[in-house]
């Protein structure tokens, strides 16, 4: 009996130790230096208490970054889910099994593509002079269309690329989820005077509530890590109109001033805020 209890522990311990070291050490270190005034240009640092945190709240660029991050989060999560559900239903309703499998395969490609490559491809597609997407506008009006340099459209344009990657992938997941549902409630609904859209709105989607909420969570966490995509496409610009929190922390820590402690305090704040927010949403969603 006893060996049964020990054996799993023996196997688990090394992996857990490595994981703890890899995950905890940088986190703890970040927390520690967020209370100091370390800079990249100096080897030493003093403990300054909450000074970094306090100055964050009078930093207008930080407030802007929060707004951008929130808009990015809402925009990408909502659009991805809307696209995934819409396209998933379309695939389920309108395609033969062969076409369905082929399209599923195609829809998986964008998400397999490394994010940086995808970003470069799309950045070129949006190029005001040579881009394929902006070409029709240029041909019709004679004016170049520069979506990525316009503060009003830049974030939305980058979000489109994110939705292209994840919305197509999630639509395949939604399709597979729909395929796993028992057919009888649909048939019952068809006999119950429900039109096709009513079957999905009142029967299919509510039956998939739990997995769809999980998908939303996955996308929320994924959207927090969109640094590479935004970095390649706009570098936070024009101005600071697409500068998310992680982007701002990065530029504070490494690009502009090397204020590593200030950047760390931002990262720690983000970690705390997201942990609280996700715990809260998770608890609410489960009820």
């Amino acid at each position: 009996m006893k060996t049964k209890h020990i054996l799993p522990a023996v196997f688990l311990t090394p992996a857990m130790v490595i994981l703890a070291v890899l995950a905890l050490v940088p986190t703890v270190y970040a927390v520690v230096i967020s209370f100091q005034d370390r800079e990249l240009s100096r080897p030493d640092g003093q403990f300054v208490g909450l000074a970094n945190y306090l100055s964050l709240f009078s930093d207008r660029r930080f407030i802007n970054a929060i707004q951008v991050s929130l808009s990015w989060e809402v925009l990408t999560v909502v659009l991805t889910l809307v696209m995934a559900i819409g396209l998933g239903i379309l695939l389920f309703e309108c395609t033969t099994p062969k076409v369905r499998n082929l399209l599923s395969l195609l829809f998986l490609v964008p998400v397999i593509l490394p994010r940086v490559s995808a970003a470069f491809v799309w950045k070129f597609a949006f190029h005001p002079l040579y881009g394929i997407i902006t070409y029709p506008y240029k041909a019709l009006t004679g004016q170049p269309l520069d979506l990525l340099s316009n503060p009003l459209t830049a974030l939305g344009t980058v979000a489109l690329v994110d939705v292209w990657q994840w919305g197509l992938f999630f639509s395949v997941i939604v399709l597979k989820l729909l395929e796993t549902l028992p057919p009888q409630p649909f048939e019952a609904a068809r006999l119950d005077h429900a039109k096709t859209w009513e079957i999905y709105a009142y029967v299919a989607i509510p039956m998939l509530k739990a997995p769809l909420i999980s998908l939303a969570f996955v996308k929320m966490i994924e959207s927090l890590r969109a640094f590479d995509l935004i970095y390649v496409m706009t570098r936070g610009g024009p101005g600071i109109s697409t500068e998310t929190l992680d982007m701002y922390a990065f530029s504070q820590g490494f690009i502009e001033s090397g204020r590593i402690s200030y950047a760390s305090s931002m990262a720690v704040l983000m970690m705390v805020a997201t942990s609280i927010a996700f715990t809260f949403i998770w608890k609410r969603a489960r009820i």
Partner: protein
Amino acid sequence: MSNIVCSSVDKNYGAINVIKDFNLDVADREFIVFLGPSGCGKSTLLRMIAGLEEISGGTVSIDGMAVNELEPRDRGVAMVFQNYALYPHMSIYDNIAFGLKRMKVPKAEIENRINAVSATLGLGPYLSRKPAELSGGQQQRVAIARAMIKTPKVFLFDEPLSNLDAKLRHHMRVEIARLHQKLQTTTIYVTHDQLEAMTLADRIVLMKGGAIEQVGSPAEIYEKPRTLFVAGFIGTPNMNLIDVTVARGESGWLLRTEGTDIHINGDGLDLKAGQEAVLGIRPPDLVQTASAGENVLTGVADLIEFHGNDALVTFKFAGKEIGALVKASSCPKTGERVTLSFDEARIHLFDKTTGLTMRR
């Protein structure tokens, strides 16, 4: 309320023909049971009438109107599924109300109708619960309520009791029978359970391999099976089937088996000398007798199954297992010799090659 007419209905899946030239008239208010073994096409046929499967050929009309091209919702049918098919995320109330809401029935009327239906089916206390919180029998009652509330022209039942345990099945069978007595809605009921078919049906449609074997009242099908398949399928315990050869006797006919000859006078039977046939005798038609005279089956009882009032005695005769249903009080013991006689009017005779009855 209305009649249903199926004329030359076919169903193909690619090159596979699962329903062949199906013709049936269901009268208004009739309770029809489609009975047959698994895979005989009875559920497919029901789903074609409901509109859930496409009709490959022929016409289905409900109330005098061809419905081949109509959506399921426009056919005026309501269906109860084997696995209930309730909407799992909705309360019982919403499950029952779903169809009426889609039909844009006013809220107050929905409420009244649900109250009436749930009173009939005893669902009052459960209206606010979710389907998963109810037992199988209650769930099936909800499914029936959901079908009933739309006051359809036709009720379709697809093996509604197959997922329930034996006791509940009996109980629900009685409820369905009462409901039909009360509502008098034309009903088609699919089952593979002959007991359900016998007890519920006005007429049974016995199917095999996508075609009708026999249509008739339960008594007709039991007493006058048209084919060997029907004879074997209907009746518990199963009919005893013995291979015989027909021969001319001194006064009448002989049915030759291994060992014994059975004398019959052949009234009402189409007999030809030398014909290979199958003799069918139902276990309750075999009576214990003391005399070892003519027309008796004898053997050594090797298994006794106690059924309560009766007991099923099994013995070997002419290389076949024969069962006889005898009074439990006069039941022989295992290993004893049994002698059983029968009434010639109660026997069945089938042509061995065509499987058709030889009764005129």
